[in-house]
């Protein structure tokens, strides 16, 4: 990707043009994105509660360390991350390979089936999943009962409630990742596979020795994107399980919302927000170090 330099003639004639083109975006960017990043960092050191007098200090951060609810939210978020992201990305990779296969008939129809969830909003599908996993009347329990497996009290037990959230997220986001991976697959030249086939490599060997290594940058991109997304999980636990039962599905996202916009404790919520940012940075850096070498 090279940028061809603009000829000197035009650059001399209109030196202000590029700045004017960027200016509107830049103003919005600075006011609503760059400054808030700094501002919320500063806020995390301020006691923002009504009537608070302490001007500047580590009060929010030390409270965070000892906060039992925060620990629960952190544990739940990391648990969902550790389970959901690998499951989803394995499924998405398998789907992308399958959808890319020349053996597949009616490819368009299959693509529609797997990609359709990505136009559904989080509120809409959260409502649908809440209804489907209703203990007494939900379709899922009716299906399980018909199979002789008995009903599960999905939304009122910690483990099953977590499972519903993971299932819902997997349903919603697998197709999205599969599209990105499919684009990555289509960037791999046919000739590499033909050469491997001539050398007698089985499809299974081709997948492990060619597809996966060449897909690695795309896969890495999906991993980082999914991690950042999952760390900010809000709608599903808010609408499917109400963070419950108890606080069993409370996440950093729902806790931040509660502290920031229910208790209006902006300083403490900022500390939670920066914990999310720090986790995102650490996980991304680790991923890049472990899997980002070469290419």
């Amino acid at each position, binding site marked *: 990707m090279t*940028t*061809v330099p*603009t000829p000197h003639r*035009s*650059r001399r004639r*209109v030196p202000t043009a590029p700045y004017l*083109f*960027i200016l*509107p*975006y*830049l103003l*919005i*960017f600075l*006011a*609503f*994105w*760059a400054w*808030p*990043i700094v501002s*919320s960092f500063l806020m995390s050191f301020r006691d923002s509660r009504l009537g608070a007098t302490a001007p500047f200090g580590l009060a929010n951060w030390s409270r965070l360390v000892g906060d039992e609810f925060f620990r629960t939210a952190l544990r739940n978020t990391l648990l969902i991350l550790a389970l959901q992201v690998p499951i989803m990305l394995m499924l998405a990779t398998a789907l992308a390979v399958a959808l890319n*296969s020349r053996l*597949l008939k009616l490819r368009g*129809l*299959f*693509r*529609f*089936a*797997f990609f*359709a969830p990505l*136009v*559904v*909003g*989080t*509120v*809409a599908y*959260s*409502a*649908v*999943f809440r*209804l*489907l996993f*209703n203990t007494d*009347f939900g379709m899922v329990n009716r299906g399980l009962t018909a199979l002789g497996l008995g009903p599960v009290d999905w939304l009122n037990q910690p483990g099953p409630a977590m499972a519903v959230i993971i299932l819902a997220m997997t349903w919603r986001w697998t*197709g999205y990742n599969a*599209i*990105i991976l*499919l*684009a990555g697959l289509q960037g791999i030249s046919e000739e590499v596979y033909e050469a491997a086939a001539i050398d007698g490599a089985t499809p299974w060997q081709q997948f492990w020795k060619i597809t996966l290594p060449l897909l690695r940058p*795309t896969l890495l991109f999906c991993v980082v*994107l999914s991690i950042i997304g999952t760390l*900010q999980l809000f*709608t599903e636990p*808010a*609408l499917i399980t*109400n963070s419950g039962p108890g606080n069993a599905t409370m996440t950093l996202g729902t806790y*931040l*919302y509660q502290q920031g916009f229910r208790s209006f404790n902006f300083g403490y919520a900022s500390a*939670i927000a920066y914990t*999310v*940012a720090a986790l995102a940075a650490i996980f991304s850096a680790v991923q890049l170090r472990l899997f980002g070498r070469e290419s």
Partner: protein
Amino acid sequence: MQAQRRAAAFWLHLALIPLALLFLAPLWLMLVFSTHPETAIFSPNPPLWFGGAFAENFRGLQADTNFLRTLGNSVVISTLYTLLSMLLTSMGGYAFSKYAFPGKNLLFGLILATLTIPTFVTIIPQFILVARDLKLSNTYWAVVLPTLANTIGIFYMRQAFQTVPNDLLNAARIDGANEWRIFWQIALPVVRPALAALAILLFLASWNDYLWPLIVLTQKDSYTMPVALGTLVGLTRVSWGGIMVGTAIATIPFLALFLALQRLFVAGIAGGAVKD
């Protein structure tokens, strides 16, 4: 060899067909449930095919949430956001792609550096700015303004403008066209397919956005559709048939659009995501 391929194809379809049905099931049930009263949805034999209660469910939903009003809010907000965001990101992307100027790398580096920062970090200062300083709560601008800082869009449009030949722009310069006219009348029409894909994704993102509108919209009449539906889900009084009508109306236009423009959707998502 031929038999082996046929066996592989057989197993591939055997695995994919049930999985595809499983992926379509929630959507199917959402559509079906929107046409049944709650008693049918919660009956021992829940319906799998359409019923006749759509209008009745819709009336209930309208009574509970002023649904048409929230639908109108969503349309205005998403349209406003899409148009403005397309304008801002294509202007910015054009400058980063087609000009050499002092500070370019610094500015682009600054934008690049914030790309992986979670939006949670900005949400509280944004709220303070919008609600307290600008006093915009419950307005369209409260929802639209902060989300206009769309970093991915800048990258996407920068990529798109790389494909426009510089000779084309220089020829127009020699003919005496000014820089804005070159951008507006020559460069922009060339990248129209990329813009169309971006427009769909921007509109969809705004249409489905929940957390930010939930924070800045506090009056019932200013709600967007997801916010209005979200308030219903937690309640027990409102019928599930009505909620399914709302979710179906929020989803069906995009399912139809997706069926018609699948290629554009896929290109947009893949193009916005894969950078090289």
